């Protein structure tokens, strides 16, 4: 079975996001003054094969996030798993 995994990684809420600030300032400067609370994070898509059980996929993705994809000191992650056709 093939699984499509979508992962979002973002700075923890309590941590100031310089990139988010810069992008928001850019938008405001362009006249979009009704925009606020902008955060920038990472988004990844990947395929996982060889597993039949969604729980297993979930476990693997969680482990990959903890070990490599996110830095727990500053980042939170969440993900979503879909079975592919």
């Amino acid at each position, binding site marked *: 079975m093939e699984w499509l995994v979508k992962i979002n990684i973002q700075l923890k809420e309590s941590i100031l996001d310089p990139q988010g600030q810069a992008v928001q*300032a*850019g938008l405001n*400067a*362009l006249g979009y003054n009704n925009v606020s609370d902008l955060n920038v994070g990472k988004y990844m898509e990947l395929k996982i094969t060889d597993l039949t059980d969604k729980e297993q996929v979930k476990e693997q993705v969680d482990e990959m996030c903890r070990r490599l994809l996110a830095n727990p000191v500053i980042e939170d992650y969440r993900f979503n798993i879909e079975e592919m056709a």
Partner: protein
Amino acid sequence: MNQTNKPWEIEGLTEQEYNMIVDLLGREPNYTELGMFGVMWSEHCSYKNSKAVLRNFPTEGEVVLQGPGENAGIIDIGDNQALSFKIESHNHPSAIEPYQGAATGVGGIIRDIFTMGARPIALLDSLRFGFLDDEHVKYLFEEVVAGIAGYGNSIGVPTVGGETYFSNSYQGNPLVNAMCVGVMDHEDISTATASGIGNPVMVVGAATGRDGIQGASFASDELTDESEEDRPAVQVGDPFMEKLLLEASLELIKTGCLVGIQDMGAAGLISSASEMASRGETGIELDIDLVPKREEGMNSYEVLLSESQERMLVIPEAGKEDLVEQIFSKWDLNAAVIGEVTDDGMIRVLNKGKKVAEVPARILADDAPEYKRESKEPDYYNELKSFDIDSLFSIEENRLTRKDDIDYNNILESIITSENIASKSYIYEQYDHMVQINTVVLPGSDAAVLRIKGKDKGLALTTDCNSRYCYLDPERGGEIAVAEAARNITCSGGRPLAITDGLNFGNPMKPEIFWQFEKSIKGISKACQALNTPVTGGNVSFYNENPEGAVYPTPIVGMVGLLDKLEYATDQFFKNIGDLIILLGKTESELGGSQYLESIHGHVKGRIPELDLEKEKKIQETCLELIKAGFVKSAHDCSDGGLAVTLFESSIGNLKGADIKIESNLKAEELLFSETQSRIVISLAREDKEMVEELIGDSIEYQVIGEVKGERLKINNLIDIYIEELKTKWEEAIPLKLIK
């Protein structure tokens, strides 16, 4: 999109060129073959519109080991060492996708250098943009700089110098030229030649994707509003991959097992294969199936023309395939045999066992037609030249206002906060300019100076071109570009050795543009001849136009010089209070084409400064003599913005002011801002004055003009500024313009 049933038009060829191809082949080319001709006979690869003129360059000299014709030139720097260097443009890709365009430009020129067997030790970048009042220009500017930084910093080659100018003529068509310099031992000099029948042909590095197909033909066309639409798939650079490729390639070259090596740049595999075969008078047979691909379903045409970055074509001796694979796999890189060298002179391409193309390599690589385009002096030339500058300030008025009304401090401030003169630290602080720990004179002075580890010598590197001058007078503008580059090298303690040139012009089919091109080359050649700095290679970029017209002619001169001893390294900054300041050369009434005219009166007009190459040479020789004798504490070339700006720039480094008194019959504006050539401002210890004067003798004109003093810059009764305050304004000028 072009609707045409003439297949050559899609490939950017003319009907006449198509007929030539049919004649040379003795048959009609098929689809794949025509694509091969399309890129190989494009201006970018074939130089069909420029070759004849480029032949005028002086390309020989005692230091030249490799002149134009290879991926980069090579010169001898003694101790069995050689220097490889070249400049390359990436203008159109940068106009479309500025970050990646600039980044891949850097990646490309670095490959050209390590292809020659040299380790890249420095980058320089020469940039041109519209003025920073425009949002899109700001975007281009920020992204181009970030792209150069992103690539150069990551791969670990310091960007130690360059230049950045702004003018309306570059609006929408920025110029992004990058120069790379590498060092090697003589025995490591490699060539891009295919020889040895039966030797394997291997592609190493990145897999091939559909990137930038037909980029070379794209570069050979004017930018239009549709360019963003019908652009080829943009190339994305991977500096990490290139760092691995660089290390692996140099390791491979050291083994001595290579017959030939060539990077894959514009026009990709087909260009590298046909050029290597043509140089070796051999053929190459390639199998498309064997090329590692990033995407599925690529046809032969796409594989041959792809401009995927970070790839090289290497030809080892037969039997050494394993060694190549071993070295590349250590660096986690692909190496695949895709064909072999043959004796029939043909580029033969197989796909799935079928022959899809077969064309003599020589015809592809060397037999493109050569055109001598029509050339015509443009109408603006005499008109602008005869502009009467004195009409801007009648003598009478001037005499009255000289003392009270005109505030020269304000004028100086306007000039030094104009984009062109303002500090470029915003740019070079984004570049790692110290990695490799060789940078002895950092960016911000006339030329960068690098040490050569293990030797008591150094290199001085610079790029120069005043395109306002080249617009107003391309021939003398070309001469001045070379003279100024040499002056920068000299001021830093180096002996000018050789140049590479980046020739950026508009559409060569327009006679007025071709005239600019011819004249610039004539000027560059003349100055190179006189200063004994041969041309070892370069790059031509035509079609730099936008709907408003062509860019200013911009022939960028990249020069390298040698410091015979590292202790000669000199920067432009005043050192000690009480030191004397001497002006070598003499200021004349030459405000034509100056920064003053542009910043204060909004004119790009007038007769540009004279240049007497004999005098120039003497001034430079004298300056270098003085440096070698150990008398010179600072030396600064007097150019853009004139004497006042030069003195300001010498003051800011260590926040040391100067008290200047000059006797002169010139108008105040001329004294301060005239851009007379062949002038250098030096400072020296007071007690050395006599010995310095003796050494200078009567070889050149010079004048003691003041002393290093205090925290203010004072010039006659005209200028009196507090250095630190103006330095801040000068440093903040560009960042302030970028704030949205």
